[in-house]
């Protein structure tokens, strides 16, 4: 197992180099430069030339790439052209928000999706099964931004039950030692802040979790249907074990294998930043930050931010593979 982990970590170097080169080329292929974005109507050729010179954008491309790689190798991700804040600061500030939202969304998807999928499989062919299928299709098909706007309209604007934007009540002056608001509220022993943070998470997590919910439900259903017809399950029933023990110990445990893979992959995707959800809920995460950077042609943010997310994605996949080995002894032993 250790050799496996070390080998995967060593692979990070060529992966990140490859990503850095692709991102570097891609953002420079986009029309427009940071100068034109910053200066707007005032972008006279003279001013654009001045700004491009300031940021070294008139240097040969290989020289720009070398500077970028050299800087990154010293663990410096650069400074945003639009805000003058360092990329590192923005990641420290925003990534916890994205993690919190991603975890909440996956929790929503898993806590509802697995039982739903399991029950659909156990009630195969009934109205419940068909209803779960329709619900999953709706979940997959509805655009997140549309679902988010509907949820906000109903629960915030019309009913006034839940907030529509942000991570906490803006009038509160809570401490945020870790920038994970729920964790911070627990550390500070502030139940009001905890409840406030949870309330703010509900709508964006439901919106973001709608697609993973649909996927987890369907995969669980398929996996349970597959497993419960296996010989060892029939044997367990024949031995006289109660249905609950058969389901828990034999069916669910084995059905979890593909589900855990899906959960891991979906979490990795969500951690890359849910642009639409973050935008419509004004959730200050990584996704909306990178989307803004594309619009502003903020090269340092795009280069540093995407590289960071690539690292996160690879690490999450590694964790998924390790957990797969833990759950499935056959894989561990092999």
């Amino acid at each position, binding site marked *: 197992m250790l050799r496996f982990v070390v080998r995967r970590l060593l692979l990070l170097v060529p992966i990140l180099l490859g990503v850095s080169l692709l991102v570097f080329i891609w953002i420079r292929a986009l029309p427009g430069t940071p100068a*034109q*974005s910053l200066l707007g109507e*005032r972008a006279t050729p003279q*001013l654009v030339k001045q700004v491009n010179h300031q940021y070294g954008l008139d240097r040969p491309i290989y020289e720009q790439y070398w500077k970028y790689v050299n800087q990154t190798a010293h663990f*410096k991700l650069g400074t945003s052209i639009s805000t003058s804040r360092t990329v590192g600061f923005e990641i420290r500030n925003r990534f916890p928000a994205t993690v919190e939202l991603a975890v909440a969304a996956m929790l929503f998807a898993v806590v509802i999706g697995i039982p739903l999928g399991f029950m659909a499989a156990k009630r195969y062919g009934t109205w419940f099964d068909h209803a779960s299928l329709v619900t999953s299709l709706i979940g997959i098909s509805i655009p997140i931004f549309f679902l988010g706007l509907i949820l906000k309209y109903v629960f915030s604007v019309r009913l006034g039950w839940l907030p529509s934007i942000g991570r906490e009540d803006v009038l509160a002056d809570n401490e*945020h030692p870790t920038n994970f608001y729920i964790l911070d509220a627990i550390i500070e022993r502030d139940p009001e802040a905890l409840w406030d943070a949870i309330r703010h998470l509900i709508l964006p997590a439901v919106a973001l979790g709608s697609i993973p919910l649909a996927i987890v439900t369907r995969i669980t259903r398929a996996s349970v249907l597959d497993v419960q017809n296996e010989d060892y399950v029939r044997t367990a029933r024949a031995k006289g074990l109660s249905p609950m023990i058969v389901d828990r110990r034999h069916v669910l445990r084995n059905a979890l294998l593909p589900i855990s893979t899906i959960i891991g992959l979906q979490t990795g995707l969500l951690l890359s930043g849910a642009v639409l959800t973050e935008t419509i809920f004004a959730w200050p995460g990584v996704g909306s930050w990178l989307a803004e950077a594309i619009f502003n042609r903020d090269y340092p943010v795009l280069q540093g931010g995407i590289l960071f997310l690539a690292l996160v994605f690879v690490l999450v996949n590694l964790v998924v593979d390790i957990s797969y080995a833990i759950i499935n002894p056959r894989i561990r032993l092999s």
Partner: protein
Amino acid sequence: MKAKPRNLALAALVAALALVGSSIALAGAQASKTIVFGTDAEAALLDPALVSDGPSLRATDQIFNSLVGFRPGSTKLLPELALSWKPSKNALSWTFKLRRGVKFSDGTAFNAAAVCTNFNRWYTFPGPLQSPALSYYWNTVFGGFAKPAAGNPGPDKSLYKGCKARGKYTVSLLLNRRSTSFIGALALPNFGIASPAALKKYQADAGTVDANGVFHPTGTFATQNPVGTGPYKLKSWDVNTKLELEPNNRYWGKKAKLTRVIFRPVGDTAARLQALQSGELQGLDGLDPADVGTVQRNSKLKVLRRPTFSVGYLGINQSKPPFDKLNVRKALAYGVDRKAIASFYGGVGQVANQFLPPALFGHAKKGVPDYSYNPTKAKQLLQQAGLTLPVKVEFAYPTNVSRPYMPDPKRNAEAIAASLEKSGFSVSFTSAPWRPTYRATLQAGNYQLFLFGWIADFPDPANFLNVHFGAFSPQFGFRNNALFNELTAADSEPNLAKRSLRYQKASVDVMKYVPVVPYVWAGSAIALDKDVAGYVPGPIGPVNEPFSLVQVGS
């Protein structure tokens, strides 16, 4: 009887919903002393000399005062930190009499030395801070630095020569050439006077420059300790969440009514509006023209329109025939149905009859040629110019952009073309992405007719007329020395009343010459909770919209 698990689950769900519903903590809870205002982006920095984005300017405008100010809701100059100002006989020096007894929020005294410290700081900015991406307004208004980095303008290009403190409360700004337009620019927060003690203590100019040449401030002046003389000071800034101001107890003017002013960045227009509707915000900027009706129909909200201050125009390149002929340009002016296009702007567009908007001094109230839509007259003029109808023209418009003066460029272009087609023209279109192709092509003089506009940097007619028509530019392709000289003379007229008259005449002369066809003056709109009172929208919003006048509720 044992409760079934299903019933228990249902009961738990109802209880949870009741708990959620009962614990609403909307942002308007402390309505009378607090306002939460939604902005379209996060502020970049709180050092006004280094920013040009709306959110930063809005916040710094509450914290800093400049030598001169604007009357709220207008561009009329008023005394602020200076009580009066006048030029020397040769107009190469302007002397300001300063307000006495003013203190910065850190207790430092405001005086002539403080003014010179600030002006000299900007003039001697180190290389990285000289970039137009940072000190855009110094670059635009004064245009030069004492020790320019490579590629930046130096003392020879600078309007600013120096600053002289004449005693404690009199200061002179020395210029290298005559100019009056800079006075209007001084009212911007970008020339707000900061505490010299704070500039030093919090290392305002300190920073690192990364491998890309991007400056990052390492001092805390611009992020935690911006110290000015304004009605508010910074309480806290939780980047990407909220920026909170509190009253400055040392403020020399009328005390602010609100004790908490919170700016909350909400980038998405729809999200911002929904937050206003749900009560999480009490006001927002950047209201989409399409949403004006929605807000007006809501009995709890109201719309305030800013006076129009940007101009949309049909640009003409006179280097491309037949637009070197005056009659052809006049035919274009008669051929544009301005009323039809102004109706696209959700109530924030006004038909333009000249380049200068009404809110600006120099706007001519009489004598402006009347080019009301008249297709018959347009055709006559084309025939008088010796042309066969229809006259073929190529009309360029940008894509992937929305600006206040052209929220939907394609729609504007199609509407203009439709009216031109009735006026003796045959229009073919060309389009290009706003960034980078459209502007670059336009500025290189490669378009014959083009859709464009202007949002002023500062409220002075020179920033409209001289910028566009004060010298030859490839995009307009003409050399009219009489007009160039007229505009230069108007800019250097030191007497404000005479200057206004000169610009009124110049505005009329521009319309007689028709280098462009202005068709709309556009503003923008703010949406507020009905309980918000005292908010005065200004033409150059978000600047000059003081929150010290605002109150919420009774």
